[in-house]
C-alpha cells in the first residue's frame, strides 16, 4: 500500500542537548570562547585581571596592622618580607579610623552621632520599604527635629518649639481653610508659624527649659568632621532638596509667568556654576548678604548652599518626569474636577516621581559625593582629615591606605543607594515587558 519504507508512529523522546552546549562547558563556550576573537579577548582580559590582582592582593593582605608610624611599618615590612613597598600599612587606619569617622567630635559623646545614624535607619525604614511597620512614620516625622539636637546638643525644647511652629501652621490650615478658602488659609498658616517662631517660640522654650532642661552638652561645629560630617551634610541636603526640588519643578511648569521666570532663573543660575563657587559663597559671602551682625555656623551655611545646589538639579530631574507624562493625565485629572494641588498629589506626582527614580537617586549619590568638596573650604571631611593625618610626623607620606579607606566608605554608601534604586524600579514596574 505505501511506497514509504518507514513511517514513524510515535514521537521521538526529547534528547538531552549536546554536552558542549549545557552546564559549565556550554556556558564557557557561549560566553568566553565563542569565536577566535572572543578567545583572544578572554585571554587578554584574564591576564589583565591576574596582573592587577597579583599587585593588589599581596598589597592588601600581606599588610601591617599594628605600628605607630610609617617608619615602623616599613621596618616591619623589611623584616618580614624583605622589601618596604608592596605592602599596605593598615596601621594608619587602625590608629585613626575613629578620627576618619567622627572627626574631632568629643569622644565621650560618640554615642550621639551613632544614635542619630541608627534613628536615621529607623526613620528611613518606612520610606524605603513598604514592609516596614507604618507606625515608624512618627520617627520619620520627628527625625528632622531630633537630628540637630543630637548632633549639636543644647536643649530639646528648642527643637520642640520649632516643631510646634509646624503644628501651629497645621492647626491654622485645618480650621482656616474651611472658613476663608485655601489660599487665604495657607497664607494665614505661614504667618501664624512665622509669628510663633519669632515671638512665642523663644518664650515657650525658655519656660520649658527652666522647668525641665532636657539638654545635652553643646558641641561646636568646629569639632564636626570625618565621614559623619559628609553624611550629615549629605543627608540634610538630600532630605531638603527633594521637597524644594518638587516645588521648583512645579513652579517651572506652571502657567504663572512670574513664578515660572523666578524658578527658571534660580535653577539655571545654580546649574551653571560649579558647587565650589557656591561653597566659596558659603564660606566668605553669605554673611555679607545677611543683616549686619548675623554670623551663623559654617556647617549650617554649607548645608544651605549644598541644599540649594541639590534642589536645582532635583528640580530638573523631576521636571523631566513631569514632561514625560502624556497630556491626557493632566486633562484626565482636570476632567475629574480635581483642583491643582489634588491633581498633583493624586495623579501627576506619583507617576512623575516613579519615572524619575533612577535620576533622583543618582542626584542623591552625586550630592553625597560632592560633600567632599567642603574640604577645600577647610572643613574636616574625610579627605580634609587625610591631609591632616599626613601632616603628622608619624604618618607623613602615607597616601594609598587612606585613600582606599575613604573610597571604600563612599563606595559602600553610594553603591547601596544605586542598588536600592534598581530594586525600587523593579518593584514599581507596572508595565509588562
Amino acid at each position, binding site marked *: 500500500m505505501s511506497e514509504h519504507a518507514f513511517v514513524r508512529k510515535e514521537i521521538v523522546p526529547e534528547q538531552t542537548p549536546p554536552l558542549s552546549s549545557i552546564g559549565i562547558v556550554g556556558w564557557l563556550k557561549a560566553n*568566553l570562547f565563542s569565536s577566535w576573537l572572543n578567545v583572544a579577548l578572554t585571554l587578554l582580559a584574564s591576564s589583565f*585581571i591576574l596582573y592587577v590582582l597579583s599587585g593588589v592582593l599581596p598589597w592588601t593582605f600581606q599588610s601591617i596592622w599594628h605600628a605607630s608610624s610609617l617608619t615602623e611599618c616599613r621596618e616591619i615590612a623589611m623584616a618580614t618580607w624583605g622589601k618596604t613597598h608592596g605592602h599596605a600599612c593598615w596601621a594608619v587606619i587602625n590608629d585613626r579610623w575613629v578620627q576618619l569617622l567622627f572627626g574631632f567630635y568629643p569622644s565621650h559623646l560618640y554615642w550621639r552621632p551613632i544614635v542619630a545614624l541608627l534613628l536615621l535607619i529607623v526613620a528611613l525604614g518606612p520610606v524605603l520599604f513598604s514592609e516596614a511597620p507604618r507606625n515608624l512614620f512618627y520617627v520619620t516625622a520627628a527625625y528632622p527635629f531630633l537630628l540637630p539636637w543630637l548632633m549639636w546638643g543644647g536643649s530639646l525644647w528648642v527643637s520642640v518649639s520649632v516643631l510646634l511652629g509646624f503644628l501651629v501652621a497645621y492647626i491654622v490650615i485645618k480650621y482656616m481653610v474651611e472658613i476663608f478658602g485655601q489660599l*487665604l488659609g495657607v497664607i494665614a498658616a505661614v504667618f501664624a508659624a512665622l509669628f510663633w517662631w519669632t515671638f512665642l517660640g523663644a518664650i515657650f522654650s525658655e519656660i520649658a527649659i527652666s522647668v525641665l532642661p532636657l539638654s545635652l552638652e553643646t558641641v561646636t561645629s568646629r569639632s564636626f568632621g570625618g565621614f559623619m560630617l559628609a553624611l550629615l551634610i549629605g543627608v540634610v541636603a538630600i532630605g531638603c532638596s527633594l521637597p524644594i526640588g518638587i516645588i521648583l519643578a512645579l513652579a517651572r511648569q506652571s502657567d504663572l509667568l512670574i513664578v515660572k521666570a523666578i524658578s527658571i532663573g534660580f535653577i539655571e543660575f545654580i546649574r551653571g*556654576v*560649579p558647587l565650589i563657587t557656591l561653597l566659596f559663597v558659603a564660606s566668605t559671602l553669605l554673611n555679607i548678604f545677611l543683616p549686619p551682625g548675623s554670623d551663623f555656623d559654617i556647617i549650617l551655611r554649607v548645608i544651605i548652599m549644598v541644599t540649594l545646589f541639590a534642589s536645582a538639579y532635583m528640580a530638573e530631574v523631576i521636571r523631566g518626569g513631569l514632561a514625560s507624562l502624556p497630556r491626557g493625565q493632566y486633562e484626565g485629572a482636570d476632567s475629574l474636577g480635581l483642583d491643582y494641588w489634588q491633581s498633583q498629589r493624586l495623579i501627576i506626582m506619583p507617576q512623575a516621581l516613579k519615572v524619575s527614580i533612577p535620576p533622583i537617586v543618582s542626584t542623591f*549619590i552625586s550630592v553625597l559625593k560632592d560633600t567632599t568638596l567642603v574640604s577645600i573650604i577647610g572643613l574636616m571631611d574625610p579627605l580634609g582629615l587625610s591631609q591632616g593625618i599626613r601632616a603628622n610626623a608619624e604618618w607623613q607620606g602615607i597616601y594609598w591606605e587612606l*585613600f582606599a579607606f575613604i573610597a571604600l566608605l563612599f*563606595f559602600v554608601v553610594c553603591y547601596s543607594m544605586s542598588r536600592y534604586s534598581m530594586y525600587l524600579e523593579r518593584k514599581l514596574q507596572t508595565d509588562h515587558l
Partner: protein
Amino acid sequence: MTVSADPDKASFKPAMLIYDTRYRSMTIQIFVLIAFIIFVFWLINNTITNLFELGKPIEFRFLSEPASYDINQRLIEYSSRDTHLRASFVGLLNTLVVAALGCITATVLGVFIGIGRLSKNWIVSKIMAVYVEVFRNVPVLLWILLAMAIMIESLPAPKAFRGDTATASMYLSDSVAFTNRGVYIPEPLFNNPIGDISLFGTSSMRFDVSLDLLVILIVFFGGIFTSFKIKKWADRTQNITGVRPTTWYLKALVILVPTLVLLWALGFYLGYAELKGFNFKGGTHLRNSLIALWIALSLYTAAFIAEIVRAGILAVSSGQNEAAASLGLRPGRIMSLVILPQALRVIVPPLISNYLNLTKNSSLAIAVGYMDVTGTLGGITLNQTGRELECILMLMLVYWILSLSISAVMNWYNNSVKLVER
C-alpha cells in the same frame, strides 16, 4: 443683542481677586513679585550696609593692579607683573585646556568602555561593569587627589634619569619623560617660521596666535574637506553607474601630501626635552597638576559616558539590527548606517551635559594647585585683594557663560537631529 460671557463691571468685587480663578493667578503673581522684589532689595541693602561697614565698596579697580604671583602652567605669556585680569584670563584658558583635553579622552574611553560592557565576552563585560561602578561611586575629588599622589609619589625624580646607572628611562625613543615634576613631551618647532599675529593689542586679553599652526590647520582641514568632496563624487558615480570608484588613495593624497609639504617648507622638527642640571629643559612641560586633573576627570567622566553610550545602543530596538541584516548589510555598515545614527540621538544630549559637568568639575583644580580660573580669580587674586564679592561674582559669571555656550551647542544639535514629524 450682544451676548457677553464677561461678568458685568459693576459686579466685580474685591473678593474675586482670591476666589475667582480668572483673577486669582494674577493676585498670586503680583504677591510673589512683590515678595521677590522685597527679598532682593533686602539682600542688596544688607550687602551694601555690610560692605560699607567693612570699608570695601564694590569696585573692580583691583583687576588692573599687578597680580604679583606666578602661574607655572600657561598657554600665553604671563609674568607676575601682569594684572589680575590678565591672570584670570590665563586661568580661564587653563580651564578651557583641561576641559577640552578631558572631554576628548573621556569620550574615547567612555565609548570604549560602554561598548565593552555590551561585549558578548563575559569577562570583558564584567571588567567594564566593575570599572563603571568603582568610578561612579567614589567622589571625583578623591580621584584627583589620588592621581596627584601617584604622579608625585610613584614617578621617578629627574635625577633618576641621569648617568649610566639611571633607574628610569624615557619612553618612545627618548621623547617622553614621566617624572615626579611633570611630563615632558617634545614640542613642535619650525626652522623657518612665519611668525605670530597678536590679537587684542595690549589689553589683558592679548594673546599671540602662531601663524604656522594656523596655516597647518587650514591646510589639514582643507584636505579633509576635499576628501569629503571626493566621497560625494564617488557616491554620485555609484548612483549613476553602479560601480563605486576606489578613492582611498585619493583621499590620503589630498589630506597628507599638502600638509607634509607645508611641514617640510616650514622646517618642522621636534624639540626634545633633555636632562640639564637638576631638571629637564626644552620640550613641552605638562605639570603634575594638569596631568593629574586631566587623568582623574577623564577616568571619572568616562564611567558616566560609558553608561550613556550603553543606554544609547540598547535604546535602538533589535528589530532595527535584524531588518538591516536582512537587507544584506554587513555588520560594520549596520553599525554606521542604522544603529549609530539612531543611538546618537539618544546619546548626545546627556553626553554634552557630562561635558558640562566635567568643565564644572575642573574647578577642583584648586585642590591640586592647577591654576585654572578658580585657582587664579577665585583663589590667589581673591586672597590677595580681599575682594570676595567681586571675585566670586566674576567667577560665577565665567562658569555661567561657559555653561550657557555648551548648552547652546546642545540645543542646536538637538534641533538639527530632531525627528521631523509630519
